[in-house]
């Protein structure tokens, strides 16, 4: 157990009361309880309010492009399998702009942890609807209410048999921390859909709203059929906890090239290059 002060204290640009503050504390606690020091992990993010988290704790960080956090994150893990890799970004970044990468990451199953700060809104750009905004929700850019159906990330992830699928709520601090910890300990791609309220632009899905609805699941997370049913529930009740878990070898453990640790340490084998060249004779 490390002191969470190890990860530093930074001035943030988040609104006071934003759920992101709680997520940050949970992440630090999950790291501390696993004894992971700042230089021992990389945090990767995209762009949005959530994605700024990289700048608010001591870490190796890659703050990339909007929607593209998962791509560098998976490559970092493949290039250095000894690294712990965390990805954090918003619902818009991850499920909207980066939707294709989300699907591919589930299939690829690289051993990284994805924490989506799901506030069901675009926070940084001040209140447009996101893929998880509920139908009928009147947002800045949807004066008639959102017509589109919301994207259900956990149902999609379970349907695709993602290796680890969990949902939690930043306001249930212990639950959030423990869920992150479990996700990080899971050997494979792990999704944590973290409801984290945007107090400035989402007046529907508030702290009180989530608090009244989030209920811990009780099913066996290895039971896919039940997980599939539970994952589709969202509304009057929001199931939280580990919805689905299925262990299978992650890509970084399957590639023979990754077996000797970080790729950059491997010297160039000029004799092998020469042999390959002379094969063209």
């Amino acid at each position, binding site marked *: 157990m490390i002191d969470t002060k190890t990860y530093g204290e930074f001035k943030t640009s988040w609104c006071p009361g934003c759920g992101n503050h709680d997520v940050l504390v949970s992440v630090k606690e999950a790291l501390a309880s696993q004894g992971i020091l700042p*230089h021992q992990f990389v945090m990767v993010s995209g762009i949005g309010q959530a994605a700024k988290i990289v700048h608010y704790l001591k870490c190796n960080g890659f703050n990339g492009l909007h929607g593209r956090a998962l791509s560098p994150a998976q490559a970092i893990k493949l290039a250095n399998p000894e690294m712990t890799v965390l990805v954090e970004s918003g619902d818009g970044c991850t499920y909207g702009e980066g939707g294709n990468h989300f699907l591919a990451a589930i299939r690829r199953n690289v051993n990284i942890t994805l924490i989506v700060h799901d506030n069901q809104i675009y926070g940084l750009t001040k209140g447009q609807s996101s893929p998880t905004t509920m139908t009928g929700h009147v947002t800045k850019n949807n004066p008639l209410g959102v017509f589109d159906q919301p994207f259900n990330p956990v149902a999609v992830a379970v349907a695709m048999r993602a290796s680890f699928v969990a949902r939690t709520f930043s306001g249930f601090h212990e639950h959030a921390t423990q869920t992150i910890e479990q996700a990080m300990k899971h050997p494979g791609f792990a999704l944590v859909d973290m409801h984290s309220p945007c107090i400035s632009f989402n007046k529907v899905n508030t702290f009180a709203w989530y608090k009244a609805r989030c209920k811990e699941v009780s099913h066996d997370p290895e039971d896919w059929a039940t997980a599939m049913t539970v994952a589709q529930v969202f509304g009057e009740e929001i199931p939280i906890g580990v919805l689905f878990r299925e262990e299978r070898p992650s890509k970084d453990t399957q590639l023979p090239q990754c077996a000797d640790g970080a790729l950059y340490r491997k010297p160039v084998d000029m004799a092998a290059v020469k042999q390959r060249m002379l094969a063209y004779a």
Partner: protein
Amino acid sequence: MHKELHLIMGGEAGQGLDTVSGLLVKAVVRSGRHLLGAHHVMSRVRGGHNNFRLRIGSRPVQGPPDTFHLLAAMSQESVDLHKDKLKDPGIILVDAAWELPARPGMVAIPFAELASRPVFRNVALLGVIGAMLGLEASLFEEQLEEEFRAKGDKIVSSNLDVLSSSMKWAAENAPSLPLPKVDDPTKMLSMDGNQAIVLGALAAGVRFCGYYPMSPATSIAEGLVHAAVEMGVVVEQAEDEIAAANMALGAAYAGARSIVPTSGGGFALMTEAVSLAGVSETPVVFVVVQRPGPATGLATRTEQADLELVLYAGHGEFPRAILAPATLEDCFYLTHKAFDLAEKSQGPVFVLSDQYLASAPRSVAPFDLEVLAPIADPDLGDTDPENYRRYNWDNPISPRRIPGHGKSLVLADSHEHDEVGHIIEDGGIRVRMQDKRLAKMDVILSEVLPPEFSGDEEPDLLLVGWGSTCEVLREVTAGLRENGVKAACLCFTQVWPLVPETFMPRLEAAGTVVTVEGNSTAQFAGLLRKTTGFHIKDTVLRYDGRTLTAGFVMERLQPILEAL
């Protein structure tokens, strides 16, 4: 005896043109001759009409040929399409079963007799051509054994039988077309541009390749796939080009030398990542193998129309270098250099190739691996980790450490940032950081490759070109000079940045200057004008998707030559 021998083979996709041409190329190169081949392929898997053109010489040969001594027609359509390209006299190989009216130079091969089954027709054709060219049977036998060993002894021996009876038939019934003699055959290799790029990358210690399949770049990724486990390279087929490029950036951040092979359409999707490489100062090598656009364009043809795309790709301003290989050697050495330059300048470096160069097999002497300078390394130290600043601006090149290597925390950021890598909005820091990044251009400028000049010192006609068309310019120049024209050519293998001192005197000393490019708007001439003010008015532009040849250039030069 010809000084050179020019050959064209045509047939439908799926008929095995690739196999025959591949085996023939290897046999010719193993016999010590120099060669260059050009594939003309339709974007389909079956049917249509493809052709392969081969130029063989006793000395190194340059561009693809325009006229031919021999046409090997694998389909009747091929006869109609190519008979006018035959030299006089020329030979046409056809199938006796087509019962074509006899014409001078036509040789009807009894494939039905020579090849007991249709699958053996290719080997029969190979045997006939091989015998006509005077190649030893052993040059084909060893290859057939390698090729079919996995399929069992019976298949190997059937193929060898067909080969030998076809060679025998040709010796008795077909005219001989002996290959140019070589006095002192040297050991040569045969490969295409993409294969040379793969070798260059491997020699540079490439460790990660992110790609999404797109002709004509795919074979680079495939070449790396086959080397991946042995050479320690992770080659990831991404879900799209955006992911491919962003993955390469992530891997590079983690210390792995990274390459991204693609073509124009795929590269267009990568441009935001190019910009990210610029601001985050991440070394990545992009290989853009051009094909004709816009959009899907002509998928299997060639063009040089993405110079401006690559030059301006990515929003914002940041330094970059663009290398444009002209030869197979360039493909190898410049790819190797690109990795070094990317690390030294901590940013994106581009290798701009094209379909012709990518797929044209050539003979080449083995690359000299001893002369390769070691690739620059990131900062693999960890002194004073508490105070490490990724974007330390004491020097334009900040120490680039690798996350997890030591205790230093490495922060890469897409926002404008301070020295540590944290988001800032302060105008002063912004300006200083932008100036720091732009100052890295000096590193790139310090090793810009000057264009290669050849020909008369004060030419009446100076041809200017870049990339894969340079070889043709050299050939045209030599031909003009033989005919008494004072001619020269200026060939650029680095198209950005440009250092005017290295070529302006050449442009100014020339009478008429002509730009020769594989595009419709003379992009390189435009770039020269923008950077130097020098206006090249005369152009020879090819944008029908076909490879530039000396014949094409000569024809277009006629009015200019007459006005000289």
